[in-house]
């Protein structure tokens, strides 16, 4: 069982959750959150070796984080008179 620690100043929690959901087919991933980190506990893996799945999972978390960081903020809804 592997533990991967994502620092919340570098990775968004949303991104870790999205990547964990995307990898549900390949691994059992449980998330534990603290104020500074999100820890992904990788349980049983399926289809590929553990290293490949864990590293690919990290890449996806990074990609998801970058995409979310670059997404422009949703404009506020216009106020109704």
């Amino acid at each position, binding site marked *: 069982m592997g533990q*991967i*620690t994502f620092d919340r*100043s*570098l990775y968004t929690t949303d991104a870790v959750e999205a990547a964990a959901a995307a990898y549900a087919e390949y691994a059992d991933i449980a998330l534990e959150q603290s104020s500074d980190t999100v820890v992904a506990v990788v349980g049983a893996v399926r289809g590929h070796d553990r290293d490949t799945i864990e*590293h690919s999972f*990290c890449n996806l978390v990074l*990609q998801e984080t*970058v995409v979310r*960081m670059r997404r422009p903020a949703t404009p506020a809804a216009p106020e109704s008179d």
Partner: protein
Amino acid sequence: MAIGEQDVQSEVPESRLGVVLGRDHASFDVDETVYPLEAIYGGAYLFVDRCFVFLSRPKPQVVNVRLTSRGAATSAELEALAGEFMNEMLSQAARLRLSQATTRIREYYTAAALRAAASAPSVDDLLAELDAEELGDDPLEISVPWDKKGSEPQ
């Protein structure tokens, strides 16, 4: 060893770039006061197709970048990979600063272009203007074709 932990036994700090080289990975610290996080993200985003990228924060204002090869790689290849990442980070940082420095003028030109487009007459307006136009006298006979002029009796 879990991802993100320092692998002291398999790492040998031998790179001339200051990169710590391991069996299948290279890692180095980035000063966030020199390279903004957006530049690190920009470089990382371009490298996820080539290798596995993991970021960690060993101390405030410092980001550790760990690049793990997808297959077997020599120390020279790992060092080259790290060097390319550093170059890309520098490029991203320069582009980011240029973008920030020219934000105001780009906004100005965009606004000016939009204003000009909004005030430009439409095709229908131009046609209506042509229809309404009254043609005056033509003392120089500009409207008469040259071959007609030549055939006129002297």
